[in-house]
């Protein structure tokens, strides 16, 4: 098992290098000059020279890449050109929104998808099965941004004066703000240090923060604001997981050892839950990593529709504004997160399916 994990880790390293290289090259290839883009009419030659020195843009390209790689390893992403603030600080503020969204989407997709898939498989070829599969097919065909807009219209406008109303944008109701847990607990935290960034990162997950500080008002409010985006985002993965669960479970249920168990007199329920499910889940776990990528992609569109200031939306804006430090940092972070998740999926797959470990 350990060798397997080590092997997977080692393979990740060249991929990581490739990601860094690609991000660096892409950001440099974007046409346009950051100095002129940021400073506007004040961008004379002398001002730009100072500007380039300040942001290290005057060094030869391979030096820049080396410095860049060195800094990425220690998670120093430099300062945003547009906002003159450390990119790591901006990351700390923005990543939690995307994580909450993506995790929420994943959790909903897994639970709902697996549940629907199991029901469809057990009630194979009945109207429940057909209905669910039709819905699943429709689900994977829907553009996520369209679904988000339609949900916002339905719950934000049509159901406005009912109890079903849901807020169509933002993370919290105006006037409410989430107090970081370390402030609530009276910890001494110096602003701007790595420790503060680390703590802020967790505190910016409003739902988690409200939970551990026991603030039910914020907790409920934050969850209400997350409902629509999470539903929109989770639809496609949910449908895919439902279909795969169903087909996988059907296949497993048809296998010999299941028939043996049934013949032995094991109760149907136990057959399904103890014997069939575990094996049926393998293909689902396989695609989980892929779904995470889809969730991160979909997060960009969902954040745009629901006005959430997450990493995806900021990245698109940064690309428009040629803010190189943000483009590089955010892309690397997303790719690294994605790689890490895939690694976890691979490892857990190794747990679930012993055959893989021996490859």
């Amino acid at each position, binding site marked *: 098992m350990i060798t397997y994990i080590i092997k997977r880790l080692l393979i990740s390293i060249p991929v990581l290098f490739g990601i860094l290289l690609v991000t660096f090259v892409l950001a440099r290839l974007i046409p346009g000059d950051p100095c002129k883009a940021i400073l*506007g009419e004040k961008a004379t030659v002398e001002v730009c020279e100072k500007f380039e020195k300040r942001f290290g843009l005057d060094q030869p390209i391979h030096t820049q890449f080396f410095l860049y790689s060195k800094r990425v390893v220690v998670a120093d992403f430099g300062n945003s050109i547009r906002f003159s603030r450390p990119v790591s600080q901006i990351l700390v503020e923005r990543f939690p929104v995307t994580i909450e969204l993506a995790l929420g989407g994943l959790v909903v997709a897994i639970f709902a998808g697996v549940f629907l898939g199991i029901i469809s498989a057990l009630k194979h070829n009945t109207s429940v099965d057909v209905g669910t599969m039709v819905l699943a097919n429709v689900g994977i065909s829907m553009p996520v941004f369209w679904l988000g807009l339609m949900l916002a219209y339905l719950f934000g406008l049509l159901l406005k004066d009912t109890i079903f109303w849901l807020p169509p944008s933002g993370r919290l109701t*105006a006037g409410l703000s989430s107090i970081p847990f370390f402030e609530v607990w009276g910890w001494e935290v110096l602003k701007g240090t790595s420790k503060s960034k680390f703590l802020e990162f967790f505190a910016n997950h409003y739902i988690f923060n409200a939970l551990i500080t026991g603030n039910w008002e914020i907790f409920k409010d934050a969850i209400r604001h997350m409902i629509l985006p999470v539903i929109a985002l989770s639809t496609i993965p949910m449908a895919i997981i439902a279909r795969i669960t169903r087909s996988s479970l059907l296949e497993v249920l048809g296998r010999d050892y299941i028939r043996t168990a049934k013949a032995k007199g094991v109760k149907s329920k136990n057959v399904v839950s103890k014997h069939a499910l575990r094996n049926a889940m393998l293909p689902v776990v396989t695609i989980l990593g892929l779904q995470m990528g889809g969730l991160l992609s979909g997060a960009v569109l969902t954040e745009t529709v629901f006005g959430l200031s997450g990493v995806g939306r900021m990245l698109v804006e940064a690309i428009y504004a040629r803010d190189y430090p943000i483009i590089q940092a955010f892309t690397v972070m997303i790719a690294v997160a994605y790689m890490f998740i895939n690694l976890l999926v691979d490892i857990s797959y190794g747990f679930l399916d012993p055959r893989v470990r021996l490859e």
Partner: protein
Amino acid sequence: MINKKLALGLISSIFLLAGSVSAGDSVSAKDCSYGGKVKSIEATGDLEVTFTMCKPDPAFRAKAAFTPFSIQPKEYLDSTGGGGSILENPIGTGPWKLEKWNRGDSIIYTRFDDYWGKKPSFEKLVVRWAADGAGRLIELRSGTVDQITNLSPDDFDSVKGDSDLTFIPVANPNTLYLAMTSTFKPFDDPRVRKAIALGIDRSRIVDNYFPLGSEVASHFTPCSIANGCAGDSWYDFDPDAAKALLAEAGFPDGFKSKIYYRDVFRGYLPEPGIVAVEFQSQLRDNLGIDVEVVVMESGEFIDESTNGRLDGFYLLGWGADYPHVTNFLDFHFSASNPQYGDVHEDIYGLLEVASTIANEDTARPLYTAANNAIKRIVPMVPIAHGASASAALNTVQNAHFRPFGAPLFHHTDPGKDTFVFMQNAEPISMYCADETDGESLSVCQQVVEPLLGYAIDSGNIESRLATDCTGNSDATVWTCQIRSGVKFHDGSSLDANDVVASWAAGIDQSNKNHKGNTGAFEYYSYLFDGLMN
């Protein structure tokens, strides 16, 4: 025995002390050759500041009321070096103290109980933002916000008919223009530019894409500004003449080009994408000109356009900063502005002279000639003066939107403890001196104040931190009397040195606090013709 030295030392230190109180800080340019308007700014008294100008500046009071020229404590500027934490934590004299800036989400202010003026009747002010008009209206309707800016034109009627909402027309004078950069072919040919001027049906655009209350522009400057409409009105729509002129210039079948714009909601351009496509249709149908619609990011667009680098048409406009014709004409048609390509002495020569004349009537013939020159040369085509509106809940007393500047929230009463305002976008920083976008200026305006200010319902200049600023007979020396007993949010008292320090940080490039966000201090530079030293 009195130690002579000690006595001398004591006496001279008393004099020095007295001197440093009465002859305070100052900043000055070496001489007026740097081309700018300001020669020196001196604290000529504990509560008096004197501005000495290189050239007459009759519009000084209007400019000094503008937010970038707000005052912060000298000690604070020194301790932050004019950068760093001052960008997100301004300290001012305003009715609101900054409590927290929740990045990406909101800005929260609390009432400043030692404010010199009318104190707010409620405790908390919250500013939020949402990029699209429909979203803002939804939040207003659901009661999660109390007032919004930039109402979508499509929503004007429904807000007017809604008994729970107040429709607030915004009287800020603005202009939308279709620009051409004459350094690129074929815009270098004046016949081509004139053909385009004749070939755009501006009424159709205003009738169909602008809200009720908008007007077709008869001149570049709106008529509500004195001398704005001096001279002949713009060309009427004449497609036949347009096609004939274009053919005469060598393009009987039109030509290919691009039209650039940025997708930012402004009072002069509420729906940029839609209007850009409309121009595309008109240019194609009326003149045979085939344009590709290109949307650019806001910062890049402003940079490329203002430097005259866009090789085609572009859509831009202007919202008045202060109520004077120089704010419109001088900025756009001056000798140093390359945004339309070539500069034209026929225009800027007249404007330079006219800007030194304080009396409107005396200046009129000059502005008449200047406007006529603009019409003849056609550096751009003025399209419309857009009506824009804000909306608020009925429960807010005295909800308003000033024609110049952001709303004065301490004059409103939401009937509850918290007032929530929603604007277009998040501010870039809260250091007014080094920002130009409305979203940043509106936010810092609640915390810091300039010497003068704009009235709540007109373009009149009122006193703020200065009880008044008076000029000498030829507007070359302006003296401002500072209000006494004004406190900053950190408890310190306002005096003339704070005023000098704040202005110096912006206008003096050699000043140690000249740092800011990007260091450009655009408004200091363009309103006073350049930064000194």
